[in-house]
C-alpha cells in the first residue's frame, strides 16, 4: 500500500487526488490531505462569482462525500509545520505526526503584499480566499452605511481587475492603481491595454497608472493612498491584488531547496530536492518560473501522480501561458507570444475604437506560421486561433482573414473543429485531445456530451473549450450515424422541433392534416395541444381557431379549478392598474360571487366562475378596457416589475414602463410552456426577475438580461445572457431568444430545462442569438415581428362572434348551470367543498 500525504487543499491539490485515484488501478493507496482553510477545495478561478451570488458550496470542487467515497482522509483547518525527511513524517500544529511514502506539496501561493507603509491599517485586504471575500463584504457594508463610496484595488493585472469587478459588485466605485504604465502588462501590448482601459473607464471605474504608492493614509483605518507626486487618492477600502508569492515556508524550514525569489525548486518530474517529496502548482518553481494559471498546475498534478505510480511522464519544457477570460464584462485573450517583434515576424493588427475591439496576430514573414496574438473586446476567435497556433497548422492565403473573417468568401476561415489533428489539445485545463473526445464516442464508451465530460473532464476547468467540445461530440455522433430522438407520443415519431418544421414547410393549418400525413391514429391529449401550439406560434392563431385540439384551459380561455369552475385573470401589464379598473374588478367579483386573490404575477385572480358566466364577465372586463391575461395559456403570463425610478429612491431606471412594454410585446404568443418575466430597477431585485424565464435588471450603463430561470419544483436562477445593454438590444435578444426557444423546445419544457438540455448550454445559446453563429437571427427576428404585429385579444374575438359563445354552455340541451357545484366558507370568502 502506498501512503501519500498531500499538503494543501486548493484546486491543484484536489486535482492531484482526482488524477491519482483515476490512475491507481489495482494499486492500494491511502491519501491523507491537509488543508489550513476550513473548507473543501474550491474553485479559485471563479472566486469573484462569490460576489455575484454564488455560495461557497457552488464553488466547491467536489461533493461533501467525495473524499470518503475515494478513501481519502481530509483534515481541514490543520496546518503542517514540519517535514522530517529522514524518517518520512510530518508534524501538524495540533502536534500530531503522520508517516508517508510520498509527500506532495501543493501549498499554492499567498497574495503578494508590497512593503508599503500602513498596509496593516483597518480596511486593507488581500483577495485570495473565501474568508478574505467575507471580510471584504462585511467591511464594505459597514463603510457604505457610513456614506463611503470609493475603494481602491492595488494591481492592474488579471487578479487586480477581478478584484475591481468584485468591488464594483459590492456597490463601491473601484479605483485600479497600477505601478506599470498599462493594464495587464504581462498579457497585453499598449494598444490592447488602452482599449481595455477605455472600456473599463466607461463603467466609471477609475484607472490610475504609473502610480507608486508611498503610504496608506488614515489613523486606524485607511482614508486614502498617497502617491509619489504627493497626490492623494481618497478611499475607504483597499484590496491588494498585485501578484502572488509562493507558500514555500514549510519547504524552507524543512530544508528543501527553494529559489532566490521563492518557490520550491522542481525538475520535470515535479520532484523537489528530496526525491520522495513533490511540489506542484503555484508553490513549484519550474524553469525559473512560478505559473499562476490553473492549466499548468493541473498538468503538474498529473505528472506527479504518474511519477508516484511508477510512470515516466514528465512536464513539458515550454509551458503555454495562453489565457482567455472576461474581465469586468470585457473579453480578453492572449496566446503564444503576444509581443514578439523582430525582422522575421509581422504583426497584423485590427483596431476598432468604435466598438472597442482590438485584435493582433503575430505571423512569420512568409505568412505560414502563427506565433501568438492578443484579442480585446471580442475573443470569439480565440479557440480557433489557439488551435492553429498550438498545432502549427497552415494559415489561409491571406492571414488577415483569421481576424477579419473571409470577406466575400463562403465559409469560416477557421474551418471546423473536425479539421484539427487528433493530437490537438482541445481542453488545455484537463489536457484532453480531440482524439480522446471523438474516440470515446466512436468506440461506444460514451453516448452523450455529458458522458464525455464525465469521462474526460473536458470543459470542467475554465470552460472556454465548451463550444468546440460540443461540436466534436456532435460530429463524432454523426460519424457513427447516431441520432438521439425524443418523439412526442404514439401518434408522431417526431420531436416537437421536427413537427414545428413539418408544419411550417407544408403550411398545415389543421391537426388532422398533420396526423394523416405524418403520424397515425387520431391524436391524443399530448400531441393535439402540441400541434395547436405550433399553429399558434407560426400563424399567431388565437386559441379560438383550434378549439378541438387546444388543451382544456385554452378551449374555455380560463383556468379550470378544483370543482370544475374557472378562474378569470385579466391582464394587468407590469402590475400597474388604475383605481377605476380595480373597482371594475371588485364590482365583477361581487356580482358573480367570486373569490378574489392577488397572484404572484401582480394581478388579480377571480375564482369560482361558472362556465356559463365566463362570457358575461369578459363582456364587462373588455368594455372597461381590459384584455385577456392568458393565465390559462402556454404563453406569456406576466412581466413582474418593481416600481422603478418613478417613485423608488434607489431605482436606476424605469422598470415599470419596461415591464409593460415587454408584456405588451410578447402577450398572447403561444410557446412550448408558460413564460414569465420580470424587470427590476436596481440590483436589489424586488421584482425577483432572476426567478423568471427572462429577467431584466437595471445596472450602471444599461440593463442586464438574464434568461432561463424559474420557480416551481426545481427553482433555478436565470443566467446572464448579456450585460449593460440598452433597451433596444434587450428587445432584439429577447425576440431571438424567445423565438429560438419556441422553435426548438420540447412540449411542456420550460426555458430552464430547455437550456439544460441544449447541447453546448449557455455558451452555445450566446453564439446563436448574440453572435448569430448559425445565421438564423434575422429569421428569428422577422418571425417574432410577425407575431407581435398580429396580436388579437381572444376574448374580444369570442364576444364579437356569437357562434363562438356556444361552447360556454354547460349543457347542450339546457341553459342551466351545473348544480353539483357546492361551496363552503373560507375566511370572508368561499372555497369549493373539499374532495
Amino acid at each position: 500500500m502506498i501512503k501519500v500525504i498531500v499538503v494543501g487543499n486548493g484546486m491543484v491539490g484536489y486535482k492531484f487526488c482526482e488524477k491519482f485515484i483515476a490512475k491507481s488501478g489495482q494499486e492500494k493507496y491511502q491519501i491523507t490531505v491537509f488543508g489550513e482553510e476550513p473548507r473543501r477545495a474550491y474553485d479559485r478561478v471563479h472566486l469573484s462569482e462569490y460576489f455575484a451570488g454564488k455560495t461557497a458550496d457552488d464553488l466547491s470542487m467536489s461533493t461533501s462525500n467525495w473524499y470518503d467515497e475515494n478513501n481519502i482522509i481530509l483534515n481541514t483547518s490543520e496546518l503542517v509545520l514540519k517535514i522530517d525527511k529522514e524518517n518520512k513524517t510530518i508534524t501538524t500544529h495540533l502536534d500530531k505526526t503522520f508517516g508517508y511514502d510520498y509527500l506532495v506539496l501543493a501549498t499554492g501561493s499567498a497574495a503578494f503584499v508590497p512593503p508599503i507603509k500602513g498596509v496593516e491599517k483597518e480596511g486593507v485586504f488581500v483577495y485570495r480566499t473565501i474568508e478574505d471575500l467575507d471580510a471584504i463584504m462585511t467591511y464594505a457594508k459597514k463603510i457604505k452605511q457610513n456614506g463611503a463610496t470609493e475603494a481602491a484595488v492595488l494591481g492592474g493585472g488579471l487578479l487586480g481587475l477581478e478584484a475591481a469587478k468584485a468591488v464594483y459588485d459590492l456597490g463601491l466605485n473601484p479605483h485600479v492603481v497600477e505601478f506599470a504604465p498599462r493594464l495587464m502588462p504581462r498579457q497585453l501590448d499598449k494598444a490592447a491595454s488602452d482599449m481595455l482601459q477605455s472600456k473599463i473607464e466607461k463603467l466609471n471605474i477609475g484607472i490610475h497608472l504609473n502610480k507608486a504608492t508611498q503610504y496608506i493614509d488614515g489613523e486606524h483605518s485607511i482614508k486614502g493612498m498617497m502617491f509619489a507626486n504627493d497626490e492623494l487618492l481618497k478611499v475607504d477600502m483597499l484590496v491588494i491584488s498585485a501578484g502572488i508569492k509562493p507558500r514555500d515556508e514549510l519547504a524552507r524550514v524543512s530544508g528543501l531547496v527553494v529559489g532566490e525569489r521563492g518557490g520550491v525548486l522542481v525538475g520535470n518530474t515535479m520532484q523537489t530536492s528530496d526525491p520522495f517529496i513533490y511540489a506542484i502548482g503555484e508553490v513549484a518553481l519550474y524553469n525559473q518560473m512560478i505559473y499562476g494559471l490553473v492549466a499548468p498546475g493541473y498538468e503538474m498534478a498529473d505528472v506527479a501522480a504518474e511519477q508516484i505510480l511508477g510512470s515516466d511522464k514528465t512536464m513539458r519544457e515550454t509551458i503555454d501561458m495562453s489565457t482567455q477570460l472576461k474581465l469586468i464584462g470585457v473579453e480578453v485573450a492572449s496566446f503564444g507570444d503576444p509581443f514578439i517583434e523582430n525582422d522575421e515576424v509581422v504583426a497584423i493588427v485590427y483596431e476598432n475604437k468604435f466598438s472597442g475591439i482590438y485584435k493582433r496576430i503575430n505571423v512569420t514573414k512568409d505568412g505560414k506560421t502563427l506565433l501568438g496574438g492578443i484579442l480585446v473586446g471580442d475573443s470569439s476567435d480565440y479557440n480557433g486561433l489557439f488551435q492553429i497556433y498550438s498545432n502549427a497548422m497552415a494559415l489561409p492565403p491571406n492571414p488577415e482573414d483569421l481576424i477579419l473573417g473571409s470577406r466575400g468568401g463562403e465559409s469560416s476561415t477557421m474551418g471546423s473543429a473536425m479539421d484539427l489533428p487528433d493530437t490537438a489539445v482541445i481542453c488545455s485545463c484537463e489536457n484532453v485531445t480531440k482524439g480522446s473526445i471523438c474516440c470515446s464516442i466512436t468506440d461506444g464508451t460514451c453516448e452523450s456530451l455529458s458522458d464525455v465530460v464525465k469521462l474526460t473532464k473536458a470543459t470542467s476547468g475554465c470552460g472556454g473549450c465548451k463550444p468546440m467540445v460540443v461540436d466534436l461530440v456532435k460530429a463524432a455522433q454523426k460519424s457513427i450515424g447516431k441520432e438521439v430522438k425524443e418523439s412526442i407520443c404514439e401518434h408522431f415519431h417526431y420531436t416537437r422541433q421536427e413537427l414545428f418544421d413539418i408544419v411550417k414547410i407544408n403550411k398545415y393549418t389543421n391537426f388532422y392534416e398533420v396526423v394523416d400525413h405524418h403520424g397515425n391514429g387520431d391524436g391524443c391529449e399530448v400531441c393535439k395541444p402540441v400541434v395547436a401550439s405550433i399553429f399558434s406560434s407560426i400563424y399567431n392563431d388565437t386559441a379560438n381557431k383550434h378549439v378541438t385540439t387546444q388543451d382544456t384551459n385554452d378551449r374555455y380561455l380560463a383556468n379550470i379549478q378544483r370543482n370544475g369552475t374557472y378562474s378569470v385573470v385579466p391582464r394587468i401589464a407590469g402590475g400597474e392598474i388604475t383605481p377605476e379598473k380595480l373597482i371594475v374588478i371588485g364590482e365583477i367579483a361581487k356580482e358573480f360571487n367570486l373569490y378574489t386573490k392577488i397572484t404572484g404575477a401582480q394581478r388579480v385572480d377571480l375564482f369560482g366562475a361558472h362556465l356559463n358566466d365566463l362570457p358575461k364577465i369578459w363582456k364587462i372586463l373588455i368594455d372597461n378596457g381590459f384584455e385577456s391575461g392568458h393565465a390559462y395559456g402556454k404563453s406569456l403570463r406576466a412581466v413582474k416589475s418593481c416600481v422603478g425610478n418613478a417613485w423608488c429612491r434607489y431605482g436606476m431606471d424605469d422598470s415599470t414602463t419596461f415591464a409593460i412594454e415587454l408584456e405588451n410585446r410578447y402577450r398572447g404568443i403561444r410557446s412550448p410552456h408558460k413564460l414569465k418575466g420580470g424587470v427590476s430597477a436596481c440590483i436589489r431585485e424586488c421584482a425577483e426577475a432572476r426567478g423568471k424565464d427572462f429577467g431584466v435588471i437595471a445596472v450602471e450603463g444599461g440593463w442586464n438580461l438574464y434568461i432561463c430561470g424559474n420557480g416551481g419544483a426545481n427553482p433555478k436562477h436565470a443566467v446572464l445572457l448579456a450585460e449593460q445593454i440598452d433597451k433596444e438590444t434587450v428587445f432584439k435578444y429577447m425576440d431571438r431568444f424567445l423565438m429560438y426557444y419556441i422553435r426548438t423546445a420540447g412540449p411542456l419544457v420550460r426555458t430552464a430545462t430547455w437550456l439544460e438540455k441544449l447541447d453546448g448550454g449557455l455558451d452555445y445559446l450566446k453564439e446563436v442569438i448574440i453572435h448569430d453563429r448559425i445565421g438564423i437571427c434575422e429569421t428569428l427576428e422577422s418571425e417574432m415581428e410577425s407575431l407581435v404585429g398580429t396580436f388579437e385579444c381572444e376574448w374580444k374575438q369570442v364576444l364579437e362572434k356569437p357562434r363562438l359563445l356556444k361552447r360556454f354552455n354547460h349543457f347542450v340541451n339546457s341553459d342551466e348551470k351545473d348544480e353539483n357545484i357546492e361551496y363552503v366558507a373560507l375566511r370572508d370568502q368561499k372555497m369549493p367543498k373539499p374532495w
Partner: protein
Amino acid sequence: MFITFPVAPKIKIMQNILNEYQSIAFEEVKVWFKAGTLKDFPSNRGGCIKYKDKQIAIFNFERRNEWYACQNVCPHKMEMVLSRGMTGSADSVPKIACPMHKKTFSLVDGSNLNGEDYSIATYPVKVVDEEVFVGFLE
C-alpha cells in the same frame, strides 16, 4: 373574521351519484332520449346533456364517423367535466382525457387506460335523421 363550517365529506355524496351511472348495451336500451340535433355537437369534441338527474357527455367522433356517450362525472375527483375533455385514441381505441388531471378512459367500454381502478359508464348513441339519441334503461 373566521367562520368554520362542519364539512360533509363530498366523496360520500358523490359516491351515491356515481352509483346512478351504469353502462348499458345497445340491446338493453328501453328509452331513447333525444339529446339534440347534429349541429348541437361540434365535430371531434364533447357536449354535455341533462337527462333527469344525470349528466351525460356525448362525443361526435367525426374523424372516425362514430358517436359515443359516457357519464360526465370523472370518477377520480367526482367533477362534472368529462365532456370538456379532449378526444383521442390509444392503440386505435377511442378515448377521452379528463381535463382535470388527464385521466384517460376508453369510450368503448369505459375502462381506465392509465391502469387505475376506477372506470366510467358508457351509453349507446344513435343518429336518426340528423337527430341524436342516447339510450337509457328508464
